[in-house]
């Protein structure tokens, strides 16, 4: 099978993987890891593991999905190592932009996201969401990426990040507040 440019079963020869899948895998990793060095590392680890184990790929399912499955594990591996170096946010910031001292909203949620989104709106939503995610404190963004984007159970995310459940919930609460506020400010919500 080696040496053929197009192997049976819809498989590309590995020489063409970077060209064919590089951008997609990189973008997937960038969304979750949010910096070029980490994203490249996850993609590199993915191709390396895929090269070492390419005999195990059965040809069932697409090659891209197979690589994506590997990438997901590598993204978690990289995130797990990096999260320990990330600065810890104070649990209660000096000035809370969302609530006053009595716990009342400073933000209005009278508008809500429009649903369902049309195709173009969904692309626009996604572009803006990605930018909003970039604005989060690193640990909050990592918590959101591992819990929501990767859809892992909370206890697994806690183990990966080395934090308690209540800690995780505080981070996710802050992350969602900031993301929702950002989406609202960027016009991704409408008056009902």
């Amino acid at each position: 099978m080696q040496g053929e440019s197009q192997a049976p079963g819809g498989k590309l020869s590995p020489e063409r993987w970077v060209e064919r899948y590089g951008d997609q895998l990189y973008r997937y990793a960038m969304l979750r890891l949010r910096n070029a060095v980490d994203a490249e590392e996850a993609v590199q680890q993915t191709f390396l593991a895929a090269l070492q184990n390419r005999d195990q790929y059965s040809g069932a399912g697409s090659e891209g999905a197979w690589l994506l499955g590997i990438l997901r594990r590598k993204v978690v591996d990289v995130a797990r190592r990096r999260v320990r170096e990330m600065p810890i946010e104070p649990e209660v910031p000096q000035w809370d932009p969302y609530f006053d001292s009595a716990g009342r909203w400073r933000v209005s949620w009278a508008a809500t996201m429009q649903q369902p989104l049309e195709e173009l709106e969904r692309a626009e939503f996604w572009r803006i969401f990605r930018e909003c995610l970039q604005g989060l404190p690193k640990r909050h963004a990592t918590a959101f990426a591992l819990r929501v984007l990767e859809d892992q159970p909370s206890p697994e995310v806690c183990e990966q990040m080395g934090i308690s459940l209540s800690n995780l919930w505080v981070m996710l609460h802050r992350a969602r507040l900031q993301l929702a506020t950002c989406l609202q400010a960027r016009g991704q919500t409408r008056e009902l």
Partner: protein
Amino acid sequence: MLNCREVSRLVSESFDRRLPWRARFLVAFHLAMCRICSGFRRTLRLMEREVRRQAGNLPSPEDPVEQLPDDARQRLDEMVRRFLGNGQ
């Protein structure tokens, strides 16, 4: 009685676990009276749904943003070539 900050925290938590019945009751009671918290919950629900729906997909190859940088591409190509060149 819970204030809006506490309710918003429980609303967020409800996306990550099933709340204890007492918390569910207190949140439902608050939401029935509070338009802002209801709007917050609706916004989170739609955000979570849309984000989860789009997150699992491998981004389409046509999407021009965040392409693999050229130097990274060269390093990856080099790695693959070396690996295959070693006859493994």
